[in-house]
């Protein structure tokens, strides 16, 4: 998966700069989980993911700063 190949650079740069190791460890874990998926989601899993994405839209970090 090509997207994963740049991770060493991403992790070393971002961790060094911002001290955000925990955030990035969590990120790697999520990527690992996605890579390990070997079956189609159930309807319940699909709905849960869609709801997770919808809820993220309410997070302050996702609000645009400029109008």
């Amino acid at each position, binding site marked *: 998966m090509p*997207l*994963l190949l740049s991770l*060493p650079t991403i992790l070393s740069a971002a961790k060094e700069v*911002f001290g955000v190791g925990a955030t990035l460890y969590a990120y790697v874990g999520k990527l690992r989980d996605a890579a390990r998926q070997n079956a189609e989601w159930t309807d319940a899993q699909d709905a849960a993911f869609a709801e997770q*994405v919808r809820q993220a839209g309410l997070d302050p970090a996702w*609000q*645009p700063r400029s109008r």
Partner: protein
Amino acid sequence: MKHLLALLCLVLTGCATLQPGADPLVVRCQQAEATAFATFDTFVHLVADHETKVRATVPAAYTFAEWLRAKGPDGTPRGLAMISSLGNVRRAYAASRTPEHKASLVSALAALQAAVAESQRHLTALQPAR
């Protein structure tokens, strides 16, 4: 760094064989949706948590975060709308596996993967102010 490399090995070797009956394209899209959500969410949170510094030192990353956060007509941030859109196209394809649906799915998948790659490119650009 050793721990990071160990985690990366898990990521890079963790791809499993598909279960019988699973459509590879559907699973690939679901993996892309999960990867995109993890990437975008991590990126916008990092930018939000260090907004002043990012804005001053990595303006292109800040601009891209704003692009992801920009709201569409229904109020959904663009990055999340792209993930939801791929999910909608994927479900349409799963319900009716026509060549047209497949083409739409491949196109939506490519668009999302491009945005993820751009997010990761900006993550690598998070460098300290010198």
